[in-house]
């Protein structure tokens, strides 16, 4: 993999059309946000919230998501329900 030669790199991902083309967004950046961001709602009638705990075990490289969860103080017990 090359590491770049420009000190500053802008990654605009929104095109002029109303919906951004999917491939411009790096998956890692998206996963940072959709796995560890967004509203977390738990309740009796919720089937499941993203079981990030499980994701951590099987995709050990995604430790980042679990760390974020731990830092936010979220109750992992709720998520496992």
């Amino acid at each position, binding site marked *: 993999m090359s*590491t*770049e030669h420009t000190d500053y790199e802008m990654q605009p991902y929104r095109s002029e059309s109303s919906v951004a083309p999917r491939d411009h967004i790096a998956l890692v950046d998206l996963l940072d*946000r959709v796995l560890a961001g967004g*509203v977390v709602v738990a309740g009796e009638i*919720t089937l*499941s919230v993203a079981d990030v705990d499980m994701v951590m075990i099987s995709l050990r490289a995604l430790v980042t998501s679990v760390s974020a969860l731990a830092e936010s103080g979220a109750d992992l017990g709720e998520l496992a329900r």
Partner: protein
Amino acid sequence: MTEPSGVWVYAVSADVAAPSLSELRGVGDEPVRGISAAGLTAIAGDVPLAEFGESALRRNLEDLAWLEATARAHHHVIDALGQRGPLVPMRLATVYANGAGVAAMLDERATDLRAALSRISAHQEWGVKAYAQQSEPGSPAAAEPARSGAARVGPGASYLRRRRDELSAHSQARYDAIASAEAVHIRLSGLAAEARLHPPQAPQLTGIRSQMLLNAAYLLDEERAEEFADAVTALALEHPGVRLELTGPWPPYSFAGLPDRPDHGAGRRREH
């Protein structure tokens, strides 16, 4: 529909006219619809439990190809609608048994959801990552002139000297890069309404060898986006020891958090 289904929730907005949603397809290629309650609308879709139910999710979330496709589809809906007005994104894989459950959630969390909507209204999320610049091999030692008074130094001793110079230049560079990343974050936080640090991304996922020193999200007033981008450019020039990467605008994923317990104005209360 004969197969059991659940309701996948993408986001919550202030009331939205339902017909305008129908052109969007969601994670299960289902048409996206709105479920309204308490003056709010949840953007949702009916999805088969065979693929999106709890046990199916445990399996599928471990499949990177499925995770990628689903994350992108989830984002696609949020991003498309986010352009029409403030939207509080849901975390990936928020699935309810039925629409009534979604409506009940809206009723229960209306105060918090409205507060979140007003906080992010007219704001955008932008991401900034900083990497330590790859050091040029051998350069510190090459630039080092022969030390005065060195007299005759054997090849072994001179090898050690070179290694010491390289290691100390390297650790100095590392120290400076970390200080730069901190300075960048402090300056950019000053331009933002809110800032949030994400853990550095694992190199196995990014394929980038340099060490990531900063992975931050900033909530900006829409009108300051250009000023922010200019600040990033300026900071990159001021801090040559780090490489900066700007991404955005994003829906406000990193700033959508609600308090752990709903705010009913009546103090603490068990959620369930």
